[in-house]
């Protein structure tokens, strides 16, 4: 009787130690679900979802505070991907958050720019180059098209321009679907 109790107790201590060691040694930093959600978001950092950037929105989705249909730049494709990841039903984009539109980049009309640096402070990805009282310009390659620089500009010199496909970025269209003969 006593032997059995001792053996069980010894086993309990032994496994307890293994679990304790594992919990410390194999600890996962951060929330992996947040990383997975963040990886699906377009990283525009536009804040249209109501959160200050893509990562806070990912954290909110993971925490159940926000729905998955609040990302206009990602559009329906992102909603679908999030639904697949989280095992939820996809739903249409929340119209309060904005509408899905083709990719744009900001363009500064340089002859109008007064060099106030307000747009530089607003840009979430440091894609605007300039200094106080110097002309600013957009680094087009880095611009995510978030439009956050448009509102702060006191002279309205920033315009959003749609990115047109070039020979290199052009995509073959989905083949036309003529009425299929079914009989």
């Amino acid at each position, binding site marked *: 009787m006593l032997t059995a109790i001792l053996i069980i107790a010894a086993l309990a201590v032994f496994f307890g130690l293994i679990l304790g060691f594992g919990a410390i040694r194999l600890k996962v930093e951060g929330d992996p679900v947040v990383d997975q959600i*963040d990886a699906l*978001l*377009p*990283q*525009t*950092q536009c804040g249209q979802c109501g959160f200050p*950037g*893509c990562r806070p929105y990912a954290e909110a989705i993971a925490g159940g505070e926000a729905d998955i249909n609040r990302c206009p730049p990602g559009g329906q494709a992102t909603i679908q991907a999030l639904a697949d990841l989280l095992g939820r039903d996809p739903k249409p984009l929340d119209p309060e958050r904005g509408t899905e539109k083709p990719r744009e980049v900001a363009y500064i009309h340089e002859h109008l720019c007064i060099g106030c640096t307000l747009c530089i402070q607003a840009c*979430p*990805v*440091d*894609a605007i180059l300039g200094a106080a009282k110097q002309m600013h310009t957009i680094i087009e390659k*880095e611009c*995510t098209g978030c439009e956050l620089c448009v509102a702060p500009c006191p002279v309205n010199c920033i315009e959003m321009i749609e990115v047109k*496909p*070039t*020979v290199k*970025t*052009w*995509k*073959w*269209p*989905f*083949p036309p*679907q*003529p009425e*299929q*003969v*079914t009989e």
Partner: protein
Amino acid sequence: MSPATAFRKLFRFHGGLHLPEYKDLSTAVSVEAAPVPKRLIVPTQQHIGVAAKPMVAVGDYVFKGQKIARAPNLISAPVHAPSSGTVVEIGEHPVPHPSGLNAQCIIIETDGKDVWIEQRRQTRDCRDIPPDELRELIRISGIVGLGGAGFPSYIKLSPASSRVVETLILNGAECEPYITCDDMLMRTRPEEIVQGIHIMLHALHARECVIAIEDNKPEAIDAMRAAVKEYGNEHISVLAIPTLYPGGGEKQLIKVVTGKEVPYNKLPLDVRVVCHNVATAAAVYRAISRGEPLISRYITITGDVGQPRNLEVRIGTPIRELLEYCAVPVHDLSAIIMGGPMMGFSLSNLDVPAIKTTNCLLALRTAPRPQPQTYPCIRCSACADVCPINLLPQQLYWYAHSRNFDKIQDFSLFDCIECGCCDYVCPSQIPLVQYFRFAKTEIWAQDEEKKKAEIARQRHEFRLQRQEREKAERAERHKQKAAALQDEQPTAEDTARKAAIQAALERAKAKQATAESTPDADNP
């Protein structure tokens, strides 16, 4: 015939098709140089890789063969003026591409003099030139693969130091129906091709060269054999291979000639083979021996035209002028296809120029697929039977149709060479290749977006970190300043001033106290 060919065993690739050839249409008339047009439209992107950067300005006079755009990095090719004249415009112009979009072009108004640039380098014997220098000469001559892909040729002439190239295969198969430009080149300039082979073998340190020609071109085979006998040596041989589409595909040809299969995601170099087109060999010869950059090529103009033929065309000649020269009734036609009927694409605009990779213009009175009636896939597997890569086109079709881009890559979508065999045999007339092209470009775009998103994330995180750091630095600075103020030792002057202030304060206090005490006395 050299002993190498006499006993060479041939292999077979999976699938393939015997197609009606229509090749004798355009081989009846001898090759002629097309007239130099008034305006040459020279795109800066005529190859795989990065577009060349213009190095001339509007108004500049350029000589024939003068470099007008330089290659900005190693996977690119420079562009040369195809004739002498004045640069009148550098800007967007329609280019031959399935999208029908515009791209950067340099437009030259020719002066009709056709004056060569001076200081052309001429070499008698390529063996005097070290391979590195040969490759550099080929690179600066703007030579790209003339078989259709347009990959910069010098790269494919640089053997990796660890691998020995056993066989150089010269691709003269020309397997697509209607096209005869390589056939005519082999008939008319076989000696240039053989001289080009000597240069390529020297650059590659390769042991042997096999010139592979489909057996539906007996004249070309005879011409090449005669040229090899005269200019070649025992390491160069001509090999007639059975006519089977797409036998001219690089990997198919390697399989037929050597029996080796190029593994997934590997290059022919990994199986010690390098493959070049016959026209590329001729261009290499002209570049090295005569110092002529790539400014013209043979193009087949065939189909429903008055006199189908081959022309030697300057790069940049507008398609419309070529068709007019061949008396093509443009208005009666329903489609002009650039390339062959299997892999070519329909041109939406006839003002596009001929470029380095243009091998054929096919004029058709009736569209090749007049609004096809598509039927559901019946899983007959006819497409899988003919696929030269041994893929499962019906499976790829399902996944492309449902936009399942992960699964489609598990079925090796990117091994598809878009040869069109599956399209051709599909009893339901499903445009399979277009589905595959759609899926490929869609996946590329998604990958590109992912890369961009990753960069945006990094930049955003960096910015947050920077703001955090700046805040901390500012707080630190304030702290230091406050501490410095406290630690500061008062000087004599400061003490005097402080004492004066203190005395003034006390005087004021005393005054206030007396002022306050007076009303107090009045109010008991």
